[in-house]
């Protein structure tokens, strides 16, 4: 009843039509999707510094609060600078750096096969007259990626606020990292000890008070969310350490 030729023609025509429809839809909807993703990133950066805005307001608020974006190399040199809506230095807008790729480059560098030096984005904020630094974070939890932003006071040591999010951590357990009570814990913690050594902030299983960790450098983990909590610890150490040379340089130049 249906010849082979008919079947082949039918299948080919169908596939071509479907491909045309889907690629058109993708092209038409892409700008909307991209702006959603971008606004979400704006929102995440601002919420670390406790500026709560809706996604629709995020773009405006970001322009208002973030005065400068820097990209920093592993020696602490500024390789690009973006301010007042234009690129002042370097060739990539720090906001467009994909942190995940840079972290992979860092790992590759350890194995001795990096294609180029990784660069690290840093956002400088004017929070109603107070200078704050915001660092984006990316790591792995139990089931998938976790990420966030952490804001520091002008001493670049004391945490002013943080925001975390995750793709698929366990609801009620690891997924708690995106709730206020967990993020509140980070406020006031410090990433350098008295001697100026980088110690990061550890998420401590069983509670900071029951451990040997200085409460200035530790927060309580989530019960039942140990692997996610460890993931957050590792993410903090792995991402923050890249900025240490910059902070050291920056602080001495201030003195």
């Amino acid at each position, binding site marked *: *009843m*249906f010849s082979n030729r*008919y*079947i082949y023609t*039918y*299948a080919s025509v*169908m*596939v071509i039509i*479907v491909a045309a*429809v*889907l690629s058109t*839809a*993708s092209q038409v*909807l892409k700008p*909307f*999707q991209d702006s*959603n*993703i971008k606004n*979400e990133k704006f929102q995440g950066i601002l919420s670390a510094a406790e500026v709560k805005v809706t*996604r629709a307001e995020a773009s405006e608020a970001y322009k208002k609060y973030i005065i400068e974006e820097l990209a920093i190399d592993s020696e602490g040199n500024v390789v690009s600078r973006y301010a007042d809506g234009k690129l002042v230095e370097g060739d990539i807008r720090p906001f467009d750096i994909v942190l995940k790729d840079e972290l992979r480059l860092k790992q590759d560098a350890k194995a001795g096969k990096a294609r180029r030096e990784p660069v690290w984005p840093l956002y400088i904020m004017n929070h109603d007259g107070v200078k704050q630094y915001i660092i984006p974070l990316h790591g792995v939890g139990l089931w998938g990626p976790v990420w966030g932003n952490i804001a520091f006071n002008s001493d670049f040591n004391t945490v002013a606020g943080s925001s975390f999010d995750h*793709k*698929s951590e366990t*609801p*009620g357990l690891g997924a708690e990292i995106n709730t206020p009570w967990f993020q509140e814990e980070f406020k006031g913690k410090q990433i350098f000890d008295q001697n100026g050594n980088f110690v990061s902030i550890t998420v401590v299983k069983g509670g900071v008070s029951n451990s040997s960790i200085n409460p200035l450098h530790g927060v309580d983990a989530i019960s039942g969310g140990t692997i996610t909590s460890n993931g957050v610890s590792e993410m903090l150490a792995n991402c923050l350490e890249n900025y240490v040379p910059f902070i050291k340089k920056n602080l001495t130049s201030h003195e």
Partner: protein
Amino acid sequence: MSNTKESLFSPKNVKLLTAPLGRENPITVQVLGICSALAVTVKLQPAFVMAVSVMAVLAVGNVLISLLRKTIAPRIRIIVQLVIIAALVILVDQVLKAFVYDISKQLSVFVGLIITNCILMGRFEAFSMSNKPWPSFLDGIGNSAGYGIILIVVAFFRELLGSGTVWGYHVIPQFMYDIGYKNNGLMILPPMALIVVGIIIWVQRSKDKELIEE
């Protein structure tokens, strides 16, 4: 072959719409599409969006298959059905990402998994391959509504008891928490959805004796 014109909402057609809500419900009677019913029913909003998405895919897919049914060679009918489902699901996913980004994030992979929802292939094979577009359309709406209504009922109870909210608004008053009421964390986890679906099936079967197997 009767050529007499049937009215659009003849009793037979209305039955296509209503039967899946009760006695032929895809979830509670045919036990299809359980996977997504467990996964997206933590909150009402995603469950509702999921129900609407499945409705769009199933209604449009049923009509398309029904229109094409005489041209589809039986040897490649499954693959044709799959291509149509996949294309529609990708479209829905793209639209959600563009316009209801937050909910699309919560639904994450489950929109994509509509492709594997057995209800879709089931309706294509069992109904629209051998029926006219209009009845197929009604059948699609009816079945996805039957699916959606269960999703929404399950999500309502899970959200109410698990998070103390309905559609994101707090409904359990603060004094209840003050006197020791706690949200049930278990409701948030997938196993509870299975139990809630089980309770719905139980209630339905004890009311409708015809559903009870010998």
